[in-house]
């Protein structure tokens, strides 16, 4: 029925025209703002947050351990405010990590999962293929709501990740010559009717970064920042970004650091 048609249209895009002539651009934009506002009250991301909290506190894996001793950077078990300080350097892992790579690391180190198991299905697909990581990210990130972003570049590896992430942002490639900057390098632009944040400015990076993870109504799923990057590169016509790869973390570092100072405001809800 409707959902199928919605998806077909999504895929084909061609049908995007359901708005008749009488509607001016101004009112279209206003009405879509109203639509987005109406969604704010009652965000299904809360369902993921609740499931994630359960997963965090339940003994799991070969070692039957909880994640309550997982050190997200502020000390073992401290979840409050952790997301607002990530990515960061972790000496025990010898690597700069974002939340998702850190969660995988904890699932391996504390719970005894293999890395392959922990990263098997990072992006959920419906009730039969729920992602534990998406739920954990929803929970952990929700514990930073209202906390100002405070990503540190104190260490050399953190600085390096930031520099490489910046380069990556401007890297043009693929069949379409797209880089991140193609769509996210200027103020006030949009693709179709979708507003594009200018991620090269503090204001743009803040607005974008602090509203991920988010419940995507188009997918009915809670999506993380790794997913956001993965899907951007798909649309950039690049090959697939490897989950938790160095490039994914470097780019996250670049964007998260640029958002410093802004209160974190997710999980959010988006189209």
């Amino acid at each position: 029925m409707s959902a199928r048609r919605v998806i077909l249209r999504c895929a084909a895009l061609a049908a995007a025209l359901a708005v008749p002539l009488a509607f001016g651009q101004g009112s279209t934009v206003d009405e879509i703002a109203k639509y987005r506002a109406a969604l704010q009250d009652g965000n299904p991301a809360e369902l993921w947050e609740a499931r994630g909290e359960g997963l965090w506190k339940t003994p799991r894996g070969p070692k039957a351990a909880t994640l309550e001793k997982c050190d997200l950077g502020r000390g073992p078990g401290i979840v409050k405010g952790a997301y607002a300080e990530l990515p960061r350097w972790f000496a025990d892992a010898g690597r700069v990590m974002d939340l998702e790579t850190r969660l995988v690391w904890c699932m391996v180190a504390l719970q005894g999962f293999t890395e392959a198991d922990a990263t098997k299905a990072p992006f959920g697909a419906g009730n039969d293929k729920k992602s534990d990581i998406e739920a954990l990210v929803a929970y952990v990130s929700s514990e930073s709501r209202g906390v100002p972003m405070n990503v540190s570049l104190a260490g050399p590896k953190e600085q390096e990740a930031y520099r490489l992430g910046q380069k990556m942002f401007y890297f043009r490639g693929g069949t379409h010559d797209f880089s991140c900057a193609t769509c996210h390098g200027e103020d006030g632009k949009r693709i179709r009717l979708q507003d594009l944040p200018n991620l090269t400015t503090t204001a743009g990076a803040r607005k974008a970064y602090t509203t991920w993870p988010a419940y995507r109504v188009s997918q009915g799923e809670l999506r993380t920042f790794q997913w956001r990057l993965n899907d951007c590169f798909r649309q950039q016509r690049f090959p697939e970004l490897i989950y938790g790869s160095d490039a994914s973390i470097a780019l996250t570092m670049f964007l998260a650091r640029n958002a410093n100072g802004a209160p974190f405001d997710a999980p959010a809800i988006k189209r």
Partner: protein
Amino acid sequence: MRRPALLACVIAALAATGIVVGCASAPSDAETQAAATAMLKASFKPRGQAGLDRLDQDETQKLCSEYAGKTLPKDVAARIERANLETIRWPADGTLVGDWKAGEKIAQEGRGMQYSDDPKLPAGANCYACHQLSPQELSYGTIGPSLYRFGKTRGYTDEMRKYAYGKVWNADAYSACTNMPRFGHKGILTEQQVKDVAALLMDPQSPVNK
């Protein structure tokens, strides 16, 4: 996630090729660029029609990445435009515009060249993602300029038809480091498709010119 040693490898590789990486000082821009490129190649995997070769930059992509966010020097811009102009394959039959109705469909179609797309299906150009064209379509983007009344305002001349075709085939030939893909040059669109898009812009009967 098994790549904590990657950056170290990159640095080692750079050192091996004779680039000295200072320990205390920040690396040069070129060194960072090289490290970023190496990191990128290790961070993607081939999927569907998108192989790792898509990360191999051609000269235009390399220069446009290097100068992104900076002013593009005039001589570099001229070099890029010249090189890209030479790539344009003009139609053997001399006809530069095709069917605007087919062009409208191509302008609406967002699929093509993504690893999630069926490579057997023709790719679209998704012009509306970035441009206003036919006034009936209100869901258009603003990354590129409005092309509404493209032919009507510029005149239905041979020169403009040639420009429309050439621009769709290889936009960098006319504007170095533009955001616009090089649809013909990169094999996204066929010659006929480029003609059809040109028709959408240049046919007096096209809704774009109404």
